[in-house]
C-alpha cells in the first residue's frame, strides 16, 4: 500500500516536469529545426537534465549555421513515449543504451550516429554473480530462487541478463518485493533500484544472485572489496556499446551529418568540459555495422517480452 503511494508521488513529479518540457517543444517547427532537442529516458530527470543541457546548448551553438538557434533537453519516462516523440519529429537527438536505441531504430526511423564512451567505457557487458558459497555451476541452479536486477530500463542489469537467462530456457517471474517467493519452476526477479542495493542484497543473501555491468563490478564505490571477496561471477555477456548517439527523422540529414561530424571531432581539451559533463563522456566513436546487428538481436528478443 505504502509502496503504491510512494510510486504515485514520484510519478506525479516526473510527469509534471516532462509535460512542461513537451509543451515547450510543440511550438518549434520540426522542419525548420530551429531548436535542437536532445532526449533520454530517465528515472532521475533532475540529474539527467543537468548532464544533458550543456551538450545540447553547445551543439546548438556549433550548428548555428544550419539555422539552429537553441538547444533543448526532453526527458521521457518510458520507451514508447520516446519512440512516439521521435517519430513525430519532436526529438532530434537521443543518447541511450542499446535496448532503447534498438526500439528507436526499428520503430521510429532513427539512425545511429556515434557510440559514446561513458566513463572511459566504449562498451560493457552484463555480469551475473552470487555469493561464492552458493557455488552456482549452471543458471538452472537459480530455479526457485530470486535474482535482483537493477531496474526495468537497465540494459546491462535487466535486459541482457534476462535475455541470457531466458535464452538458457529459464522462465522468469516478476516479484514485487523480497518477501515474495517465486514459483518452484521459475526464477523470481526483483528490481534493486540501484547497483549498491543489488550488491548488498546478494551479499546479505536477500537474493540468490544479482546482475551488474562489468563497469560497476570494477567500481570500488559500488562494489566494496570486502563484499566482492565473498562474491563470484557465474556469467558474463558479450560486450555491447556503452551508450549510443541517435538522431531522429525530425533532424535533416544535413544537420545530422554535421552533428555526427561535430561529435566525432570533440575532444576534452577544447570543449570546455562539455563532454565530461555529458554523462562523464570521454569521447565518441563512429558506428560499426556489427552494432546494427547486435541491435537487431536485441530488438527481436524484446518483442517477446511483456513490459514488467
Amino acid at each position, binding site marked *: *500500500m*505504502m*509502496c503504491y503511494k*510512494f510510486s504515485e508521488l514520484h510519478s506525479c513529479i516526473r510527469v509534471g516536469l516532462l509535460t512542461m518540457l513537451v509543451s515547450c517543444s510543440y511550438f518549434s517547427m520540426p522542419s525548420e529545426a530551429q531548436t535542437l532537442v536532445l532526449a533520454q529516458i530517465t528515472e532521475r530527470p533532475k540529474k539527467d537534465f543537468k548532464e544533458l543541457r550543456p551538450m545540447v546548448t553547445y551543439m546548438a551553438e556549433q550548428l548555428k549555421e544550419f539555422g539552429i538557434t537553441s538547444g533543448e533537453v526532453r526527458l521521457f519516462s518510458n520507451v514508447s513515449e520516446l519512440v512516439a516523440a521521435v517519430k513525430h519529429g519532436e526529438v532530434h537527438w537521443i543518447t541511450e543504451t542499446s535496448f532503447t536505441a534498438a526500439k528507436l531504430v526499428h520503430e521510429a526511423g532513427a539512425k545511429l550516429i556515434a557510440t559514446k564512451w561513458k566513463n572511459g567505457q566504449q562498451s560493457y557487458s552484463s555480469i551475473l554473480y552470487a555469493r561464492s558459497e552458493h557455488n552456482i555451476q549452471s543458471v538452472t541452479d537459480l530455479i526457485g530462487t530470486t535474482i535482483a536486477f537493477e531496474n526495468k530500463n537497465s540494459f546491462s542489469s535487466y535486459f541482457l541478463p534476462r535475455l541470457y537467462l531466458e535464452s538458457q530456457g529459464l522462465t522468469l517471474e516478476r516479484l514485487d*518485493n*523480497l518477501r515474495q517467493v517465486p514459483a518452484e519452476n521459475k526464477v523470481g526477479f526483483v528490481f534493486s*533500484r*540501484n547497483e*549498491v*542495493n543489488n550488491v*548488498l*542484497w546478494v*551479499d*546479505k543473501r*536477500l537474493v540468490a544472485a544479482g546482475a551488474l555491468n562489468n563497469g560497476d563490478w570494477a567500481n570500488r564505490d559500488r562494489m*566494496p572489496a*570486502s*563484499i566482492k571477496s565473498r562474491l563470484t561471477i557465474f556469467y558474463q555477456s558479450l560486450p555491447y556499446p556503452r551508450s549510443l548517439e541517435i538522431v531522429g527523422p525530425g533532424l535533416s540529414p544535413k544537420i545530422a551529418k554535421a552533428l555526427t561530424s561535430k561529435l566525432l571531432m570533440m575532444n576534452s581539451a577544447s570543449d570546455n568540459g562539455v563532454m565530461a559533463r555529458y554523462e562523464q563522456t570521454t569521447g565518441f566513436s563512429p558506428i560499426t555495422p556489427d552494432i546494427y546487428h547486435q541491435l537487431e538481436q536485441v530488438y527481436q528478443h524484446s518483442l517477446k517480452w511483456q513490459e514488467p
Partner: protein
Amino acid sequence: VKIVLMTKTLSMTKKLALLLALIAIISAVIIFSLSLYFNQKMHQSVSHIGQQQIESAVSAQLIRDVTILSATLTDNLSEPLYNDDFTAIKLVIDELARSGELAYVYVFDIDNNIVHDGSVDINNYGQNLSHISQVKLIPSGQLEIKKIGRVIHLMEPIKITDSVFGGITFGIKFKKAEQDIAAYSDEIHLASDSYYRELWVSMLWALGWLILLILPIALILAKQLLAPLQQLAKKSQAIKHHHADISFALDRNDEIGQLASALQEMTTRLSESHHEVIKIAFIDELTSLSNRRYFNVNLPKLIKWSDQYQFSFAIIFIDLDHFKQVNDDLGHDVGDALLIAVAKTMQQVTNAFCHQHHMLIDEKVIVARLGGDEFVVVVPLGNDQCNITELSDQLLDTFSAPFNLKNHEVKASLSMGITLYPDHGTTINELLKNSDLAMYDAKNRGRGCASMFNQAMKDEFQLNHVIKLEVELALSNGQISLEYQPYYNLDSNFLIGACALVRWQHPQYGLIPAELLNEVLEDSRAICALSAWVLKQVCCDSLLLDQKGIDCLFSVNISNESLTEPDCANDILLLLNEHYRASQSICLQLNDTVLATDIDYCATILNQWKNAGAQIWIDRLSLGYSSLHYVEKLPIDAFVIDKTFIYSLTKTQPSPVIKSIYALAQSMAITVIAQDITTAMQAQHCRELGSITGQGMLYSGALSIEQLIAQMESAQYANKNK
C-alpha cells in the same frame, strides 16, 4: 627601628588617630575581602548553576531535536526498510550523521536484527541488537530516549500505518553540545573574570577613598577625644615651669575628669610639700634665720634684680668674737643660746633699720646664719652707702650690752666685714671673699668693729697668699738674699757684728719687707725652712770673715716655729753642729712670746743650741709673756730691746720699765742689745743704761755681705792702727 622611633616621637593624638585609622582600614579591608570572597563564591555558584542549567537546557534541547529528527527519520525510513532499500536507508543514516556526531546507528527489522549499521558493507547485518553492547535501550514499540553519560541514546520504532516492522536506534554524542557549553562557559568565565576584575578595581578605588576619608576623620576624632588630656598635659607643662596657680579642674565626670581632680589634689599636696621642703631646706634649724643655702640661692636673684632695677646692696659678714671660748668656758648650750639670742637681735635690728628707711622686708633683705658663729646681713641700699655703716653701728651698739643666758652674763662682740654690690664684687664668691677679708681686717683692728672692704685688703691678702705660696721656690731660685744691719760697740763705735735681715726681691711685688714675711709665715712650716736657710747662709758668710781673720758677731732671727717644732729645732741644731766654727759667732734671736709655751722644752732646746756654740738672744722682751722665772731658767745671753723702747728714750730720763730691764739683765749677767737707735741721745741713754752693743740708722743702714766685709776690714785696720 624607624617605625619604633617614629611612634616614639609621634604625639598621642596622632598615635590614636593612626590607631583608629588602622582599625577602620583593617575593618574595611576585611569587609571588602569578605565581600569579594563571597561575591566570588556566589559568582562561581551562579556560574556553576548556570552551566548546569545550560547543560540541562542544551541536553533537553538536544533530546527534543533528536526526537524530532528521529521522528522524521523513521518516517523516511519506513519505505526503504520495507523495500530493503539499503541505499535509501544509508542516505537517511548519512543525513542523521550530518546532524550530530553519531556513536552508533542501527536500523533493525521486526526481529530486532540489524538491517543497516550505516557502513558501506553493513558488517553487522543480521545481528541481533541485543548483541551490540553500544545499544543501551531495548525495543519496546515506543520511542525510548535516554541520556547516559555523554551520549543520548534513542530508540524508535519504524511503523507503516500503525504496525511496527522495525526500528532505528542510535547514540548521539553529547560532545559537540558539550563543546558549545564549554565555549559558552568560557564566555561566562571570561565575562565573570572581567566583572570580577572590575569589582576588584572598584573595591580598591572605594578602599582608597575610604582611607583618604578615614584619616582626617580619625584625626578629628582623636583630637576631640584627647583634647581634655592635651589640656591637662599643657597644664602639667605649666606646672613644670613653676606656674603654681594652675588649676586642673575640668568640668566633667568621666575618667578624664577624675584624672584632673587627682592631678589637682596632687598639685596641691605637692605645693604644700614644696613649702615644707623649702622651709627645711632654707631655714636654719637652731636660729630660725635663713641658712647658707637660702643665701646662696637668693643672692644671685638679688644680683639680678639689682642689675635690672639699678640698686646696690650691702653684705655685712659677721663673726662672733671669741665664740669658741664661750662654748669652751660655758658649754655648748650657752653657746647655742647665745647664737639664738644674737640671731634674734640681729633680725630685730635689721627689721628696725628697714622700717626706719622705709624698706619692705622681703626677699631682698636677708638675715642668715652661714654656719657656726658666722652670720650675714644683706640689705638693699639705693645709692646711699652711709646707711650701711649706720646699720653696722646700730648692731655694734646693740651688742655692747651683755645677754643674760642661762644665768650667765655673756657679752657678744661682733667683727663685721662689709662689701657693696656691685662696687666690691659681682659674684657671690667674690662678694663673700671680700666680706671675709673686711671681717678679718676688723678682727685685726682689734675685733668688735666693722670694716668696709677696700682694694688694699685684697692686695695684702693676695701678697700674703703669694708669700706663703712662693717662699720655698724663692729660696731655691735666689730671689731671697741676706743683708746685714751692723752692730756697734756703743762706747767705741767699733763695728763688731751684724744682724741678718732677709731680703725678698719679688719679680712682681718688689721688695717684700722682712716683718711682713715673718708675720705672714708665722705659724707655718715655711718659716722653719726660711730660718734654717738664713742660719745656713749666715754660717757661710761668717766663714768668709773668719777666713780673713776677722771676728764678727752675727745675729739671726729664729722663728717661734723653729723652736716649738722639734724637727725644725733639730734642723737648727744640726746646722750649728755642721758649722761649728761659725756657730761660735752666731746669736740666735728669739721672740719672747714663744717662751710662754713649754718652759722645760724651750730650756732643753735652747741649751742644745747654746752647747753647739750659739748665743741665745731674746727679742721684744717686754711685749710677750716672759717672766723672771723663765729668764732664770733659760740660757739667755742677751736681751734685745727694739724701737718700742728705744723711741721712748727721747726724754731726758728713761722710763722705769727700761731701767728695770737693764737692772734685771745686769743682775743676771745678761747683755742688753739696743736696736733701732736713730739719735745720739738714744745712743747716749743706752750707753748710760748699760748697753755696750747697739745698732740703728744712727750708725749704719743695712749692708750687703761684701760691704760688711769691707767695713769690717777697714775697722779692723783702723783698730790695729790705734
